[in-house]
């Protein structure tokens, strides 16, 4: 899993997520308008824009978690690694194996640290197969090591995960995605509930995971987007305004709206 922690010199051109004419309605309210995006594999792409611009909605339609609401209607297509996730014969469960998600507030399950890490793995395990204790231990250790949490929690793996500090909880929420080997990680403002130190630690971790996973991160924090992503997408009122290299966007934005937003004239 960890064959290349070294960063690819040039972002690959292969696409992880490709959307075509994606429109989304909450009841009668249209939240996304003809979103066409091509998100490259193995890099960190950040989604920015003022509140209500549809960035979280977009993120939540990639793993189809939006459908929980029941009154969501989607048209157009989203392909993850070439597979249309909205195709008729595709179950959300399969999609979510490929596409992991980290939420705004750390949401560990009311289980032990160990069981949190193993939850996804057990969920996707073939029926009737039993996971041996040693194999489970290995998965738990390697996942927690990857998120730089192993040393803090190795002596209390059987304690409830909700007892951890928020920053540790968020790292655990990332760790539990890894055992099923997803290709895409969606992160919805993963640092907004953390203090500056926790934010730094989690950002560092996200940077650490770069290259192994395609990471799509929604953020409110302009500085975070500029320092912690390769490409940047600016959305406004449900439409994509600009998608370019982060360095480029923050120095020479192509559109006036982007420039205004980055400079803090609204949002």
């Amino acid at each position, binding site marked *: 899993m960890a064959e290349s922690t070294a960063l690819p010199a040039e972002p690959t051109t292969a696409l992880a997520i490709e959307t075509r004419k994606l429109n989304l309605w909450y009841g009668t309210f249209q939240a996304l308008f003809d979103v066409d995006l091509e998100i490259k594999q193995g890099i960190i792409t950040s989604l920015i824009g003022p509140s209500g611009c549809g960035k979280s909605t977009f993120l939540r339609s990639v793993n189809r978690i939006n459908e*929980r609401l029941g009154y969501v209607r989607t048209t157009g297509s989203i392909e993850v690694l070439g597979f249309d996730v909205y195709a008729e014969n595709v179950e959300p469960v399969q999609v*979510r194996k490929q596409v992991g998600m980290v939420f705004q507030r750390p949401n*560990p399950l009311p289980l032990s640290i160990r069981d949190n890490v193993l*939850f996804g793995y057990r969920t996707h395990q073939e029926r009737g197969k039993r996971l041996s204790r040693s194999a489970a231990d290995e998965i738990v250790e390697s996942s927690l090591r990857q998120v730089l949490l192993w040393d803090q929690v190795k002596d209390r793996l059987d304690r*409830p995960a*909700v007892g951890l500090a928020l920053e540790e909880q968020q790292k655990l929420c990332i760790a539990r995605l890894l055992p099923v080997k997803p290709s895409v990680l969606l992160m919805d403002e993963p640092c907004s509930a953390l203090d500056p130190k926790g934010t730094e630690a989690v950002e560092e971790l996200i940077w650490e995971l770069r290259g192994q996973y395609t990471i799509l991160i929604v953020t409110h924090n302009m500085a975070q987007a500029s320092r912690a992503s390769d490409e940047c997408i600016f959305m406004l009122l449900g439409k994509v305004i600009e998608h370019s290299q982060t360095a480029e966007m923050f120095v020479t934005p192509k559109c006036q709206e982007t420039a205004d937003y980055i400079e803090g004239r609204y949002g």
Partner: protein
Amino acid sequence: MSHSADRRDAAWWVDRAVQSLVFVGGISGILFIIGIFIFISKEGYGFIVSTLDFGEFFASPRWRPTSSHNPTYGALALIAGTASVTGLAMIVAVPFSLGAAIYIGEFATGKTREYLKVLVEMLAAIPSVVWGFIGLSIMNPLIIELFNVPVGLNVLNSGIILGLMAAPIMTTLAEDALKAVPDTYREAAEALGATRWQVIFRVVLPAAKNGLVAAILLGVGRGFGETMAVLMASGHSINLPTSPFDSVRALTATIAAELGETAAGSEHYQALFTLGIFLFIVTFVINLTADLVVRGVRKQRP
């Protein structure tokens, strides 16, 4: 001092009056429970200290309080009657009420959910004598027909009736317990690829465990205390049941049927109050346990 210093205007007095009224309402629950306990203890006390043989009371099935030469007060058959009916009732009620609670809480949406909740609450409001009537006039011939037994008023009949009676309130309580599980848990588990059933079985039910146990315990308490339906559907004959087709007599039914025919203060009268004390203690302990179980879950949460 000027008039502005005195704030005792009409609003002040109203506020005071309402506070006292609410205080009386709040405190009355405690007063009533203590009052009731004192009352039934006082009535049964003389019997407990002078005549009652605890060995006989708990170990003998012979309840013959009206025997003229040698009255005996063995409550074992009555306790067994109540326990067997309540036990069967729980076997009926637990799957029904948990299933209903899971459906209402986790699957049903919008109008279906609202209608179901109202209907379940209406079920809880059916008077117990109506349930007893159903036991007597519908279940009785049905059981005789289906199982080819001489009498249909037995443990099976009253257990099913009592189970159906207890299920609505247990459903409501269990659904409350499920609703108390934060939705973020469900969302997290679903995002990890869990199916609806996996989310319920592996996350929601364990998280709601204490509330569900409390719901079941309160159902048990309800079963122990139910009188009329059990009196009508159980056959009301003193028996140590060995099969669900045996007629039994419940503690509550005994009190209800016999108390009116005893002379106040007589030995029989006091013995019935002793049964009452026993019932009171059992249901009190069950309810207290349910309460503690629910509190346990709150303490663990940060």
